[in-house]
């Protein structure tokens, strides 16, 4: 089904939950990092933007449409503004920006290439030079398998895995976690943009924004016991992550409600949506609800009933972490539907 992604397409916005009156962001003169925002007394905002006509006739995500959807999502998050200008609330020229994608699921269920290109386009529009942007994950081969073209050097957007540059020698630790951090994050990044995928996870319950940070450390295999709790929260507390993470754009164009995190076509649905937030905990809370709704629709048990509710989300919100809020009363959910 062909979509017409003209800027004039109407979007319908609806705010859910009490007290969600304003779409205008706080009006900060300088970009705030996600941790500052998450710990502020104001409500966390999560935008879910849908476009039922996101795909071309072949079923692929249309580049123009995803850019349009991204713009609407960002407007929902940061206020009605000219799309490019919105991004100056996230980045300022001269910064090194890294876009952490999720490519474990191969072509079937990884961060969408068109979406990431749209993000890079807007970053460049906001004054970030192409070569100052790195698209990355753990491994270059996995990036290629997910459809990204590995690019190093030249005046172009860079794209490579941590295998290309390695991890810092020194350990950083918080709570239960002690890890070496990707040099992409420590040496090639002032601002981190997290682009996870909305997925079920056989151990953790769900893998969305918070868990995508496992791709930053050298030893994620050590942190899967006990449903990844409290490890995911502790990883997100690592200073390099906490201070640089500024925005999460969760790809729910295709999403997975069972059998994750690897690609299982039978459990994947085309949700044609993006979730955008600066509070990863709030975003994961909303994402978890979406997966539960899909599971219910498919007649599956809740994750809790299966003994794998993502408890780490609550841990990330607790007094020891304060990475954001998982309290629905403190989350303003804005839905944007393109029509």
């Amino acid at each position, binding site marked *: 089904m062909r979509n017409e992604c003209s800027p004039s397409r109407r979007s319908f916005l609806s705010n859910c939950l009490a007290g969600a009156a304003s779409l205008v962001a706080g009006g900060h003169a300088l970009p705030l990092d996600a941790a500052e925002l998450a710990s502020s007394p104001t409500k966390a905002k999560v935008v879910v933007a849908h476009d039922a006509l996101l795909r071309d006739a072949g079923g692929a995500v249309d580049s123009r449409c995803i850019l349009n959807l991204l713009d609407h999502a960002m407007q929902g998050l940061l206020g009605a503004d000219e799309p490019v200008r919105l991004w100056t609330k996230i980045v300022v020229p001269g910064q090194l920006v890294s876009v952490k994608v999720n490519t*474990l*699921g*191969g072509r079937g269920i990884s961060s969408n290439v068109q979406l990431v290109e749209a993000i890079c386009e807007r970053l460049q529009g906001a004054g970030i030079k192409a070569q100052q942007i790195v698209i990355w994950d753990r*491994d270059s*081969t996995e990036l290629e398998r997910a459809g990204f073209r590995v690019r190093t050097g030249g005046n172009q957007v860079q794209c490579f895995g941590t*295998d290309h540059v*390695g*991890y810092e*020698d020194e*350990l950083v*630790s918080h709570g239960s976690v*002690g890890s070496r951090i990707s040099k992409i994050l420590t040496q090639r990044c002032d601002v981190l943009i997290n682009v996870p995928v909305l997925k079920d996870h*056989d*151990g953790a319950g769900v893998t969305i924004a918070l868990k995508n940070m496992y791709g930053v450390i*050298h*030893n994620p*295999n*050590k942190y*899967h*016991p006990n449903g990844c709790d409290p490890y995911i929260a502790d990883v997100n507390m690592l200073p390099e992550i906490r201070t640089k993470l500024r925005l999460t754009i969760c790809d729910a164009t295709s999403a997975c409600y069972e*059998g*994750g*995190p*690897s690609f*299982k076509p039978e459990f994947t649905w085309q949700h044609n949506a993006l979730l955008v937030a600066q509070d990863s905990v709030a975003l994961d809370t909303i994402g978890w609800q979406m997966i539960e709704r899909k599971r219910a629709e498919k007649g599956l048990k809740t994750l809790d009933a299966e003994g794998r509710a993502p408890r780490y989300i609550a841990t990330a919100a607790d007094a020891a972490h304060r990475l954001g809020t998982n309290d629905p009363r403190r989350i303003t959910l804005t839905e944007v539907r393109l029509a």
Partner: protein
Amino acid sequence: MTTNCCSQANGEAPRAEVPAAANSETGRFGFLSAPMNRRSFLMCAMSVGASGSIPHFAESLPAMPLAETEQKQSDAQFAVEARFYDKLPNKKVKCKLCPRGCAVGDKERGYCGVRENRGGVYYTLVHSRVCAAHVDPVEKKPFFHYLPGSLAFSLATAGCNVNCKFCQNWDISQARPEQVSSQYVPPRRVAELALQYHCPTIAYTYSEPTVFSEFVMDAADAGHEAGIRSILVSNGYIQNESLRAVYSRMDAVKIDLKSFSESYYQKIVTGELKPVLDTLVALRKMGKWNEIVYLVVPTLNDSDAEFTGMASWIKANLGTDVPIHFTQFHPDYLLKNLPITPVSTLERARDIAVAEGLHYVYIGNVPGHPAENTYCPQCRRMLVQRTGFEIRQMLIRKGACPFCKQKIPGVWHA
């Protein structure tokens, strides 16, 4: 000689500095190791020609950093189907190698980080993928009652099935194989190298051999065909079926009993005590030569009650002849806020174990301490005098005390 971790309880660290000429009497130990950078383990033996003598080997040591030979996880030569796992629905697998029993989804790895599910088939990624190799004195493992004064061709791959907060080899034990420099050293080549460097044993050590069990088994078979024995330095955290398959190929096994409390295993080791005790009992039933190391960490596992409980358990379940080494902790990895174990604490541990009736109780990581020596439990005369890894006197004859003829358990001669 400052090491702690599961496999390094007596200076058993690939990057540790070994005292020069530690066994000047025999002239065989002085060349053994050189200080190493964290990420530049030396693959000493691999660089030497087929006719290399030990001095030649010694000269080659600093010349073989592996930094340029890092290999990617997709390297097919290292990926061999795992031998201990079950296939589950939805392309999941259940690893049966160690008690953790990881259920691993497609494209994911188990806790140890060296086993990967690829489309419902489970692979070890570290077969023949050697990230550290050295010729060490067997005393460094430590084995004090097994071929004393001999050399062990010692090797490791990346990975470990626990995560001890004091690990001194965390660079390799807590890494994925693609994150450390490695070389392809297939089993036959391991045996050739051991022969070439006059090592009567191959030692699987430094990280945790359980996680590279398939390689251990194949290298042990290749070694035995060539007349080389195999010795294992392990945390003992292994399931029964794999234990039988792996340990039956070993000639001696050293187990790190890290504490005698489940809560310590849970909090500090990220493992369990019970399976390790089961392993020790199984080893005894198999008749394998076994020694035990207990790394004494100040305030965490150094109470009289814990020493007493452990010693009496050993006496009841393993007998009084199994050697136990109380070794000194040095701050490292995630446990840097504690001091070095006072020698007096090690002496207290030894006194308690001796009072419980254990015959061969040693103190480790304290070179020159009299409790490095072996004494006859009958006549109390000194039988083996050691300083660090060096044998200064060896008086045991035909496995017995030359003074009172008391049989001294161990494997004293090749």
